[in-house]
C-alpha cells in the first residue's frame, strides 16, 4: 500500500537500478548492487566512510569513471527517460553540465587555474545554450550574483587562485547551476571549508535548490550535514547500501549496526560523558571483500548466518535495511537482561 501511494506520483527524475562497478585486478565489486530513486527537487544524502563507494557511484552517474581500469558490471540509470549508462558519449556530453552537473570537494582542482572564473562559467553556458559571448558573460555575472559573491563584476575577471576557498566553492556552484540543471551531484562540497563558511555554503545550496527545484545528491561523511540537508539518506558500507530511507526514519529508528555504530562514534554535542562507543577494526581491503555481509567482521551482532549476504529489505515507509538481525531487539533477545541495555532503556 505504501508503494501504491508512490505509484501515483510522476516518474522519478533518476532511477538507478542494480549498479555494480568492478576494477581490473580486484575480485569483488567496489560498488555492489546499488539502487536509488530520486524525485525532482529532492535531496538525497549518501553517507559513508572512505572506500564505501559513494564517490564511485557519483562518478559513474556522471560518466566520469575512468574505464578501464573501472568496468561497469551491471546496472541502469534512467535520468529524464534515458539510460545514462547506455548512450553515446556525445549524447552524455549534452546532458552533462546541462541537465546534470557536479561539484567537487576541492574547487581548486576542478576549476581551470589558467582561465578567469567568469570565462569558465560562460564557457559552460555557451557549450549548451547556443548564446553569444555577451549573453554568456551576462549569465555568468548573474550566477555569481546569485551565489552571493560580493563585487561579482570584479570577480568575473579574477583567476581561481585569487579567491578564498569559500568563494571558489561558490564559483563552482555558480558554474554547475548556470544551465539550470535538474540534478546536481555534490561530492563532499563543504568538507574542505571552515565551519562558518560551511554554514554559508549549505544555506546557499538550500536556497538555490528552492529557487530552481533541482534535485541534489550530496555525498558526505558528516551526519550533521545529512541531518540538516537530506530528505532521504543512503548509508553505504564497503560498496553496498546497508540502510536507506527518509532522513527522519534513519536518524530516529536506525536499523543497521553500521548506521548505529557510525552515529555513536560521532562525539555527541550534548554534555560530556565517557568514551565514544566505536566500531572496532577497519574496512576490509578491496581485494578481500567477504562474500556475505561485508560489515560482519566488525559487527558486534554478527553470527554464522551473516556469511550469506543479507538482502535490502523494505521495512515500510521506504525504510530499507540489509541486515539479518534487524530489528536488533528481536535479533539479540538475550541482551535485554544486559545492564548497559537496561540502564539506557529506562
Amino acid at each position, binding site marked *: 500500500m505504501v508503494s501504491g501511494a508512490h505509484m501515483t506520483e510522476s516518474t522519478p527524475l533518476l532511477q538507478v537500478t542494480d549498479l555494480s562497478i568492478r576494477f581490473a585486478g580486484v575480485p569483488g565489486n567496489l560498488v555492489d548492487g546499488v539502487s536509488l530513486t530520486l524525485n525532482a527537487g529532492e535531496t538525497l544524502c549518501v553517507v559513508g*566512510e*572512505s572506500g564505501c563507494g559513494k564517490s564511485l557511484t557519483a562518478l559513474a552517474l556522471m560518466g566520469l569513471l575512468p574505464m578501464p581500469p573501472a568496468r561497469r558490471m551491471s546496472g541502469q540509470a534512467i535520468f529524464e527517460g534515458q539510460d545514462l549508462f547506455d548512450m553515446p558519449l556525445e549524447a552524455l556530453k549534452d546532458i552533462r553540465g546541462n541537465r546534470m552537473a557536479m561539484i567537487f570537494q576541492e574547487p581548486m582542482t576542478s576549476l581551470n587555474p589558467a582561465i578567469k572564473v567568469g570565462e569558465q562559467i560562460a564557457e559552460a553556458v555557451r557549450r549548451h545554450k547556443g548564446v553569444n559571448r555577451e549573453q554568456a558573460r551576462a549569465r555568468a555575472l548573474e550566477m555569481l550574483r546569485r551565489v552571493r559573491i*560580493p563585487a561579482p563584476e570584479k570577480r568575473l575577471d579574477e583567476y581561481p587562485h585569487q579567491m578564498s*576557498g569559500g568563494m571558489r566553492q561558490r564559483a563552482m556552484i555558480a558554474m554547475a547551476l548556470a544551465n539550470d540543471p535538474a540534478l546536481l551531484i555534490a561530492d563532499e562540497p563543504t568538507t574542505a571549508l*571552515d*565551519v*562558518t*563558511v*560551511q*554554514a*554559508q*555554503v*549549505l*544555506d546557499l545550496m*538550500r536556497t538555490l535548490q528552492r529557487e530552481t527545484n533541482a534535485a541534489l545528491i550530496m555525498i558526505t*561523511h*558528516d*551526519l*550533521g*550535514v*545529512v*541531518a*540538516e540537508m537530506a530528505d532521504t539518506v543512503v548509508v553505504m558500507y564497503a560498496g553496498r547500501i546497508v540502510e536507506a530511507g527518509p*532522513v527522519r526514519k534513519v*536518524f*530516529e*529508528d*536506525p*536499523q543497521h*549496526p553500521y548506521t*548505529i*555504530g*557510525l*552515529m*555513536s*562514534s*560521532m*562525539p*555527541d*554535542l550534548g*554534555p*560530556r560523558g565517557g*568514551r*565514544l*562507543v*566505536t*566500531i*572496532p*577494526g*577497519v574496512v576490509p*581491503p578491496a581485494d578481500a571483500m567477504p562474500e556475505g555481509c561485508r560489515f560482519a*567482521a566488525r559487527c*558486534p*551482532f554478527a553470527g554464522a548466518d551473516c556469511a550469506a549476504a543479507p538482502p535490502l529489505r523494505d521495512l515500510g515507509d521506504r525504510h530499507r535495511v540489509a541486515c539479518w538481525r534487524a530489528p*536488533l531487539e528481536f535479533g*539479540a533477545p538475550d*541482551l535485554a537482561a544486559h545492564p548497559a*541495555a537496561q*540502564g539506557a*532503556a529506562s
Partner: protein
Amino acid sequence: MTTPDLILETRSLRRRFVTRKPLLGPPVEVRAVDGVDLRIRRGETFAIVGESGCGKSTLARMLVRLIEPSEGTVLFENRNITGLRGEEMRAMRRDLQFIFQDPFASLNPRMTVGALIEEPLRAHGLGGPDERRARVAELLERVGLLPQHADRYPHEFSGGQRQRIGIARALACAPKLVIADEPVSALDVSIQAQVVNLLQDLKDEFALTLIIIAHDLAVIRHMADRVGVMYLGQLVEVADTDTLFTHPRHPYTEALISAIPVPRVGVKPPAHGLQGEPPNPIAPPAGCRFHPRCPYATELCRSTPPPLTRLAAGASVACHHAPDLSLQGLNDTGTGRSPAAERRFALYRAMREQREGQTLPVPPEPEI
C-alpha cells in the same frame, strides 16, 4: 584562593611572517599570532579552536619552539624556554611532544615503525638497545598495534594506524605535555572515534597534559576541559568547555557554535553562517578584529580593540559588550534522540561490551 598549578604559560606571544619584500618600502608582514597569553593547567586537556588562518597551528608550534616566537615568552614549569639553546632545549623537548595532523607526511617513509618509535629514545639516550626494543613493543601494544609491526614501514599502514604510530612516538620518552595539531581530522569517523578514545586513555595513564588544536567543535566538546577560541591571531574567549558551549560570551564563539551541523533531524534551525569571510590577516581591521562580521558591533568596536578580560578563574573574553550580551549556546535540555534510537544505541553498546569481555580489551586490527 589557590593558584592553579600551571604547566605552561605564554606571555604576549607574537609571531610575524614576512610575506613579501617590495623593492621600496618596508616588508609586508602578516601577524600570524598577535599577543597570546595562555595559562595551561597541569593535567588538563586544553583545546585551541579557530578557523583557517587564525594562527592556531603557529601558536602550537611556538609552544614547542618548532617555530620561534618573534616576541614574548613561553614558560614551561615556570622556566622561560624561549632562550634555551642546544643541550638544554634538547632536554626540554623530552617533556614536550607534538602529534601532527597528517600521519602520511610526518613519518619518515624510509624508517621502520620500530626505528621511528625508538628514535626519540635514542635521541635522549634512554636505555640500552634491548630496553629500547622492549619499550617499543610495549608502546605498540599500548596504542593498539602489534609488536611485530615494528619491522614494517609506514606505507603498510592505514591512516588510523599511522596516527597510532605517531602517538606511540610522541609518548616514547614519557613526556609531561603533548600538543596535538588536528590529530583526528584526517581520519574517517569510525577511526576518529578510536583515536579520540585512545588519546583520552593515554592521557589518564601517562598523567599527561594535553593541548589539542582542532576545528571540529564536536571533538573538542567531547575531549577538552577548557577551550581557547582564536580569531585572527588573538584569543577572543577562554572558558571551561561546558560553559563555552552552553553560554558563549564572545559573538564569534556564538557564531561558531551555531554553525555546527547537529546530527539530529529538526532539533535546530539550519544556520545561515556569519556574514563575510575572515579578513586578511595582513591588514586586520582596526578596533575589534571581529567587528566587520559581528552583528552586535558598535562605534566603540570599530575604534578600540577590546582587551582579554578575566571573568572568573580560568575564563576570559575580549569583547566590549560581553557584560550586556545574552548569547545563544547549544541547548542542553535532553539529547533529542528518539526512544528507538536510544534503545538501539544501548543494545549496540551492550553487545560490544559483551563481545569484548570475551575477547580482547583492544580490538585487534586485521593483518595487512
